[in-house]
C-alpha cells in the first residue's frame, strides 16, 4: 500500500496537518502575475520559495515559468530585505527587460515587516526602474489563507496599481476569471466574443502558459492582459468576477476605485453555473444568446439524459479550491451523483454556505470540511470508512486511487502527471461536455475492468 498508515480510525487533530488540500499564498500570486503581459513575477523572500513555486508551476504546465527572487540570507532576515530587492529590481530590468515586475511577499519578508512600496520608491529614486516600466506588489504571507488567496491578492494588486478611473464608461466588460487554466480563460473569452461582448480579462494566462513550440524561446510569450488594457478596466461598464474566493477582491476593488459595478458569480463549471454566467453576460451587456450557444448547451443536456443511469447515485469524493468545489458540487448534484466528501484547506467565509446551497439538500450524508485540519488524510479516512465510486481532485489523489482501487479524475492544482488541463477547458458548455466525458470514461472503464465476464457489456 502506498498510504499504508491511513486507517479508518479518525483521531482528532488540532495541530498536525497531513497531506494538505492547499498550499501557500505566494504561488498563487506568481501564477496570477504570469497572466500579465511582459510581467516578471518576483518573490521577495528566500530563494527556495521561488524555486519551489517555479518548479510546481512548471510541472503543472510543462512550460517555462520565469521569476526572480530576493535570495534572502541570514543578514537580510535580520536587517530587512531592502537592499536585496533594490538589487533584484535593477538586475531584472537590466537583464530581462520586463514591462512590469510583480513583487509578492513571503512568510519571511512578512514576518520581518518589509515595506514593499517604500522599497519601490527607493528603487525609483535610485533609477532602477526605467521610464515607462512598472512595479506592482501584493502582500502574500504564507501563514494566511492559501494559494487561492495569493491569486486573489495579486489580481487585486493589478487593480490597485494600474486601473484608472474614467468619467465616461464604455461597452466593455471586465472579467476576472479566477484560478482556472489557460484553456478556461480562452474559452471564457470565446463565449463572450460569441455573444458579441467586448471584454478585458485579467489575469489571462492563455497564450502564456500554453505557448506553442516554434523553435524560438520567447521569454515573454504573446498572451497576458496588457498594461493599457488594465488601465482601461476603469472605463468598463461592469465587472464579472468568477469565483468568490479568487476573483471577488479584485472586482470589488475596481468598483471602489473606479466605480465599475461588479457581479460575483460562481465559476462557470457545469450546466447551471454556465447558464448563470451566460445569463449575466446577456443582462449586463444587453445582448442575445446566439443559437449556436444554445446548441452547445443542448448537447450537454443531451448527454446527461442519454447517460443518466451511469451518473445516478455514484458517490464522489472531491478536494481542491473553494470556487472549483462549489461549481463542481452543483454539477454533480445536477447529474444526480452524490458528492459525499468535500474538502478544501483554503479558509474563507461563505464556502460552507455555498456548498450547502450547491448540495441543495439532496445529499444528506455529505461531509464537508474546510480550513485547518481539512486535509486529504482525513478525506481518505472517510473513504476507508465508507468508500466512494469516484475521486475528483489533483494528482496527489492518485495514491488514494491506487490504494482504494477507485478511479480518479484529475482536476485542479497541481496536475503533475498528465497533460490536457491547460489545453482543454472545463468551463462553459464545452467544458461541461468534457467533464461528462471524463466522468463517464472513468466510471465505465471501472465497470469494464471489474464486471463479471457474463455481464461485460459491448454496448453501454
Amino acid at each position: 500500500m502506498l498510504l499504508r498508515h491511513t486507517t479508518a480510525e479518525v483521531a482528532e487533530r488540532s495541530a498536525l496537518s497531513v497531506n494538505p488540500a492547499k498550499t501557500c499564498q505566494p504561488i498563487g500570486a506568481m501564477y496570477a502575475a504570469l497572466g500579465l503581459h511582459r510581467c516578471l513575477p518576483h518573490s521577495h523572500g528566500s530563494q527556495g520559495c521561488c524555486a519551489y513555486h517555479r518548479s510546481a508551476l512548471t510541472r503543472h504546465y510543462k512550460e517555462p515559468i520565469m521569476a526572480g527572487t530576493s535570495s534572502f540570507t541570514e543578514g537580510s532576515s535580520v536587517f530587512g530585505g531592502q537592499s536585496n530587492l533594490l538589487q533584484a529590481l535593477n538586475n531584472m530590468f537590466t537583464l530581462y527587460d520586463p514591462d512590469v515586475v510583480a513583487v509578492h511577499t513571503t512568510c519571511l519578508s512578512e514576518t520581518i515587516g518589509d515595506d514593499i512600496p517604500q522599497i519601490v520608491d527607493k528603487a525609483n529614486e535610485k533609477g532602477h526602474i526605467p521610464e515607462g516600466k512598472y512595479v506592482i506588489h501584493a502582500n502574500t504571507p504564507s501563514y494566511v489563507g492559501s494559494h487561492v488567496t495569493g491569486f486573489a491578492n495579486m489580481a487585486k494588486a493589478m487593480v490597485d496599481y494600474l486601473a484608472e478611473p474614467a468619467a465616461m464608461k464604455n461597452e466593455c466588460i471586465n472579467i476576472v476569471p479566477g484560478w482556472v487554466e489557460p484553456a478556461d480563460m480562452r474559452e471564457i473569452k470565446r463565449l463572450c466574443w460569441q455573444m458579441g461582448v467586448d471584454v478585458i480579462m485579467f489575469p489571462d494566462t492563455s497564450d502564456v502558459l500554453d505557448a506553442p513550440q516554434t523553435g524560438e524561446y520567447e521569454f515573454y510569450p504573446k498572451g497576458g492582459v496588457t498594461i493599457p488594457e488594465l488601465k482601461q478596466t476603469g472605463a468598463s461598464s461592469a465587472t464579472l468576477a468568477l469565483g468568490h474566493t479568487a476573483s471577488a477582491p479584485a472586482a470589488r476593488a475596481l468598483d471602489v476605485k473606479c466605480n465599475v459595478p461588479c457581479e460575483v458569480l460562481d465559476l462557470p463549471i457545469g450546466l447551471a453555473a454556465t447558464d448563470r454566467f451566460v445569463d449575466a453576460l446577456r443582462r449586463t451587456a444587453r445582448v442575445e444568446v446566439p443559437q449556436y450557444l444554445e446548441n452547445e448547451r443542448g448537447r450537454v443536456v443531451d448527454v446527461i439524459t442519454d447517460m443518466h443511469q451511469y451518473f445516478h447515485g455514484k458517490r464522489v469524493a472531491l478536494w481542491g479550491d473553494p470556487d472549483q468545489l462549489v461549481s463542481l458540487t452543483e454539477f454533480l448534484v445536477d447529474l444526480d451523483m452524490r458528492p459525499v466528501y468535500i474538502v478544501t484547506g483554503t479558509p474563507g467565509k461563505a464556502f460552507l454556505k455555498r456548498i450547502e446551497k450547491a448540495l441543495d439538500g439532496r445529499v444528506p450524508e455529505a461531509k464537508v470540511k474546510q480550513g485547518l485540519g481539512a486535509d486529504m488524510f482525513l478525506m481518505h479516512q472517510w473513504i476507508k470508512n465508507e468508500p466512494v465510486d469516484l475521486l475528483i481532485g489533483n494528482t496527489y489523489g492518485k495514491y488514494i486511487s491506487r490504494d482504494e482501487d477507485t478511479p480518479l479524475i484529475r482536476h485542479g492544482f497541481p496536475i503533475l502527471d498528465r497533460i490536457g488541463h491547460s489545453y482543454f477547458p472545463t468551463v462553459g458548455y464545452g467544458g461541461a461536455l468534457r467533464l461528462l466525458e471524463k466522468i463517464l470514461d472513468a466510471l465505465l472503464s471501472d465497470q469494464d475492468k471489474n464486471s463479471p465476464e457474463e455481464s461485460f457489456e459491448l454496448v453501454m
Partner: protein
Amino acid sequence: MSPRKEIDANEIKEQLLKGYPSKVARKRSQQIVVNAKDEALNVPEIKANTRTTPGIITQRGCTYAGCKGVVLGPTRDILNLTHGPIGCGFYSWLTRRNQTRPVSDEDHNFMTYCFSTDMQENEIIFGGEKKLAEAIREAHRVFKPKAIGVFATCPVGLIGDDIHTVAKQMSEELGINVFGFSCEGYKGVSQSAGHHIANNQLFKHVIGRGEKPSEEKFRINLLGEYNIGGDAFIIDDLLKRCGIHLGATFSGNSSYEGFENAHHSDLNCVMCHRSINYVADMIEEKYGVPWIKVNFIGAEATAKSLRKIAQYFEDEALTKRVEEVIAEEMEAVEAVQREIRARCEGKLAMLFVGGSRAHHYQELFNEIGMKTIAAGYEFAHRDDYEGRKVLPTIKIDADSRNIEELTVTADPKEYRPRKTEEQIEALEASGLEFKGYEGMMPTMENGTLVVDDISQYESEKLIEIFKPAIFCAGIKEKYAVQKTGTPMLQLHSYDYGGPFAAFQGALTFYRTVDRMISARIWSQIKPPWKMAGQPTLEAEFVHAE
C-alpha cells in the same frame, strides 16, 4: 555537426558579462571560468558557494530544500514534520522521485505523506512551540513512528521557536527519538547548507546508536546516493552480484536502522562529494571507517569504482568475482556504445546541475563520443570544481560560518580502525586513493566553460552561441531550453525515466540521449509552408474539363 566549436571561450565569457550591471558583472566574472589545466592538473580558481545575486534568475533552492527535501526526504521510516506555513511541506511532498522499498508490508513508509504544523498568523505572533509539541504528540498517536524529524522553515527562526528544546521534551515524553533541524531557508547560500545541517544532525542523533552489526563480509556504505529513479537499487544489485554487502545508503532507499548501524560497515564509498564528504570524514574519525570516492555514473566509472572497492578489501576471490562481473557487463555496454556513438559522436552537451551530477554525467557523454562544452554546479563549493587539494585555501565566509562544524573524536567504545596505517600506506602505494576527489575541472578539456550558479540569462546565451545537441539541468530550465528546439534532459529527476547508474543504467542513458537527439519531432517544428525554398505564391486550382 558541431557548429562554432572553435569559438574562443574568453570571448563568450565577455559576451555573457556584457549584459550585467557592472557590479554584478565583476562578481559573475569570477564565477565564469575558462578551463585551463596544467600538467599537474592545477586549474584556475572559481568563485563558488557564495551568495546568489538577487533578481538574476537563479536555479538554486534553499537550505530547507537541501535538508528536508534532499537528505532526509528519501528515508522512509522517519516521520518528517515541517514546522512552518504549509507551502514548504507541500512542495517537498513526493516531488524528488526518491524510490524506496519497505522490507515488508508492516515496515513503516512515511514518504508518501506530508506532515506540517501549517502555521497560522496567530503562531507567528505568539510563537509556535505549543502547536509543534501538540503536532508531534498527534503524529506519534496516529502514526507510531520510530523517530520524528522536525524541520524549521524561515519564520520559525525569526520568531525564535526553539525546536530543539521541544524535540528534546517530546523525546522524553514519548520515548522515541525526536530531533530538530534548524534548516531555515535563509541560512547559507544554497541547498548545500541544508545538506550540512541534515548530515550533522543525523551524525549527532542517529548514526552509531545501532547495535546490530551485520555478519556479511565486505560491508560498505554508500554516501551521497539518493536513489533517484532507482539508481541505488541498480547499484545494490550490482554489488550483490559481486559479493559486496551494502550496509547503509545515505540516503536513498534508506531506513532509520540502516543509519543507526552505519558505523558497523568497513568502508564508506562517497558518490556525491558535495552533499556528504564531511560525514565520511566524521565517521572515520569517530569509528575508524575509511572512505574512498566512487562514481557509479558511467560504465567505465562503475568498473573503476568496483575495482577500488575490491582493492580495498584485498581479497582474491572478491577481486576475481568483480572482474568477472565487469567483463560480463562491459560486453553489452560496448556493443550499445558503438551503435549509439555512430549517431552521437562529436555532438555537444552542456550540464548545469547539482553538486556532482554535472561532473559525473560527463563520463556517460564521453562514452558515446559527446563533448561537454560547458558545465557548472548549482550549489557546489570550490573543492567540487577544483579538487580537494584546494580545501586548505578555501576561506570561510559569514554564510558558511553559521553552519555548525562538529568536532569529532574517536569513540571510546566503537572506534575500530579497519586498516592499520601501514595497510593504508601500502594500498595508497598500489594506487588506491583515500579521501580523494579530483574535482570537475581537471577532467574537462581546456577551453571549455565552467559556470557556477548559472543564471537564466546565461543559459539562454550559451544555447544561442553553441547550439548544443543536448542541455542537462533541472525542471525549472527544462521547457525554456526545449522551446529553443534543444532537447533537454533533467538530471535531477531523469525526466521520470532512468535509472542511469551502473552498467544497466549507462545503457539506459545512452539510449535516452540517442532517443532525445534523434527524435523526429525536432525536424517538424516549422510547418512545411515555412520551410526554406517554399514558393510564397502557389498555383491555383483549375476545373477539370
